[in-house]
């Protein structure tokens, strides 16, 4: 049932008209924290996302356990202590491109966009608004954005002992390479 609800969540804007939906199952989300004490970088290359170019709707979901860290201990702490990924296995974003009319999806090129929506991490949801780019290429669409989040806004409690090792703001990078959603 859960899988059906994931599919439903991702495909609520799919299959409506015709070739307006673009999808990826290997989108990238990374986050980065820099402090004088330590750099922390987590990468997720298995983000599932759908973009509807007729409405500008953009949704994606990521499994927390798919975030990769170079250090195994860091990955363990991330899952077990900070994100409690057994309890909150997924993170999701549901939003839209607010200046859709400034993008010409029929012409290859890079377009500046504003994306606004709800970002859910653990069981906390916050509004996010960020600048980004939409790159129209032959056979696909690439979306890029970079924005900051505050861990405490998402109930990510960082113990005082290690607080200085993690930046107050985490830099989040999103890179999606969409291909047309093919109906089977």
């Amino acid at each position, binding site marked *: 049932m859960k899988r059906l609800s*994931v599919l439903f969540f991702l495909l609520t804007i799919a299959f409506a008209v015709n070739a307006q939906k673009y999808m990826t*199952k*290997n989108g990238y989300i990374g986050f980065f924290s820099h402090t004088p004490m330590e750099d922390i970088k987590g990468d997720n*290359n*298995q983000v599932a996302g759908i973009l509807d170019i007729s409405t500008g709707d953009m949704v994606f979901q990521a*499994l927390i356990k798919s975030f990769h860290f170079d250090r195994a201990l860091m990955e363990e702490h991330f899952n077990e202590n900070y994100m409690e990924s057994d309890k909150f296995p997924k993170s999701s974003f549901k939003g839209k491109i607010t200046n859709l009319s400034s993008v010409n999806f029929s012409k290859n090129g890079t377009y500046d966009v504003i994306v606004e929506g709800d970002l859910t991490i653990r069981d906390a949801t916050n509004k996010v608004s960020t600048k980004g780019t939409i790159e129209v290429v032959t056979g696909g669409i690439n979306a890029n954005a970079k924005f900051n989040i505050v861990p405490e806004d998402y109930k990510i409690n960082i113990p005082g002992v290690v607080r200085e090792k993690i930046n107050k703001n985490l830099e989040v990078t999103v890179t999606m390479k969409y291909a047309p959603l093919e109906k089977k």
Partner: protein
Amino acid sequence: MKTYIKISLFFVVFIALAGILAALMMYNKKHPDMAKTKPDFIVTASVLQKAFEDDESAASKKYINKILEVTGKIASVKPSGNNVICISLVTGSDLSSVNCTFPAISDPSKFKPGDEIKLRGECSGLLMDVLLNNCAAIVNPK
């Protein structure tokens, strides 16, 4: 007395050093070398995908956080991020495959759609696909 104190001091310093060394080793612990790690389960991509499709809750309990050795046919090979390759495997489903990320592959061109592959990785769970992380291809399985 003095000898007793010297021996006690020696042991205290030794234990402190051993503790520091153990902490450093833990801190710098790398991900397991999949080629040398015994898998918890050996499955085909089709069987794995079907298990999640039939009963996600049971399959999640069985496979998540476990090392899986998976065999299957490559559906696609996509580069992503820094030196990361994502290989998806053919399953019995049109909608859902087994999606595997390889943090470092020396020669990604040797993997082509249609090839058979045997790999080991850690199961992260189900999104649209069954996701495996920290994967490595098994050439000479141990």
